[in-house]
């Protein structure tokens, strides 16, 4: 075949390409993470790594196991569905080691207004007040017990602390 007679240089160039491709395939076998493709086009280990991240909010079940008395008080009030950490913040560390990690005391003057300050965009039926007019600067827990916030007449159970 005449066409191959003076084409030696082309074969050399082709050899460069072949070596390159082989090197690529070789490196690939070595560099692709082992769990890649386990469930799809991604590293299967990523799922377990993400699932293993630490938890900061214990979840209300964890609180209720110890603080059953608070749960009882909540059951009769409007805050029954408000989870503990919605107000008390993340407390997984406290649930893990209640003795040494103590939750901070909450300032009701700051905390309650976040939900209950009157705002035109809040649902009409939701209890909201203009705090300046409502309590003339007094903190909310002066009259309301947050775990069961309804104010009851004196002499009956519930009400102020």
């Amino acid at each position, binding site marked *: 075949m005449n066409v191959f007679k003076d084409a030696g240089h082309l074969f050399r160039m082709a050899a460069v390409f072949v070596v390159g491709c082989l090197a690529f395939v070789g490196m690939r076998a070595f560099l692709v993470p082992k769990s890649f493709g386990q469930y799809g086009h991604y590293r299967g280990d*990523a799922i377990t790594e993400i*699932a293993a991240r630490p938890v900061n909010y214990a979840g209300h079940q964890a609180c209720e196991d110890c603080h059953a008395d608070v749960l009882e008080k909540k059951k009769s009030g409007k805050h029954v569905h408000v*989870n503990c*950490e*919605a107000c008390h913040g993340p407390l997984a560390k406290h649930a*893990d080691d209640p003795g040494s990690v103590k939750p901070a005391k909450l300032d009701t003057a700051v905390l309650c207004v*976040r939900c209950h300050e009157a705002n035109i*965009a809040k649902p009409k039926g939701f209890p909201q007040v203009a705090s300046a007019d409502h309590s003339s600067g007094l903190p909310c827990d002066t009259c309301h017990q947050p775990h069961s916030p309804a104010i009851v007449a004196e002499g009956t159970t519930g009400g102020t602390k």
Partner: protein
Amino acid sequence: MSITRRHMLLLLPAAAVAWKHVLAGTPGASPNYKMSEHWWSMLIDLPKCIGCGNCVRACQSENDVPDGYFRTWVERYHVTDYDIENPHVDSPGGGKMGFPPAKEEGGKNFFVPKLCNHCADSPCTQVCPVGATFIGPDGVVLVDPKYCLGCRYCVQACPYGCRFINPKSNTAEKCTLCYHRITKGLTTACCESCPTGARQLADLKNPNDPIHEFLKTHSVQILKPSMATHAKVFYNGLDGSVR
């Protein structure tokens, strides 16, 4: 109330039981979690949202979200009369510290919490060049921070603006539906801290999940349905003005 030694003796076993609840689902502690048994989604009941911002704060705290970036945020809408094509929207600091009093009077006003919609046909996973973001077998769209190049293509492709680049890790980041919590039998941080139950985690594969009944009896929408992302965050009472 001060804790005496007697109290400790009573409390510690209870604490151990409580902590078990928290741990029940870690890869070692709970091999019972099977990805194929779940198809996670979320229900947002808009008439219940009071814009308190608890969810935004809880998410930031649970997931170490850097300041100025948001895995979830709350928007406030003000729609005048019938002009749903031109709502006035604001989200000061993502709604993290709640909302100041509205500047405008009258009209229709409401809050809309937003987060990653964990789309079944997500455009973000479609465009990732290396497979660093993906939808897992249980329906949660996740980012692999060890594999992500930080090319930002997924951020561009998300129609909902829920992705960002974490400035510390230089990788893409977004709501993970608190994957590390839901695989342990807990609910997401945002749902846990929502005082009104406006946000509810839902497992579409669980026949007993209340979402099935809810979807049958309420008018429910997803955001931007024309994008055909098959979003899995369902909004009850979504107004036509919501972007």
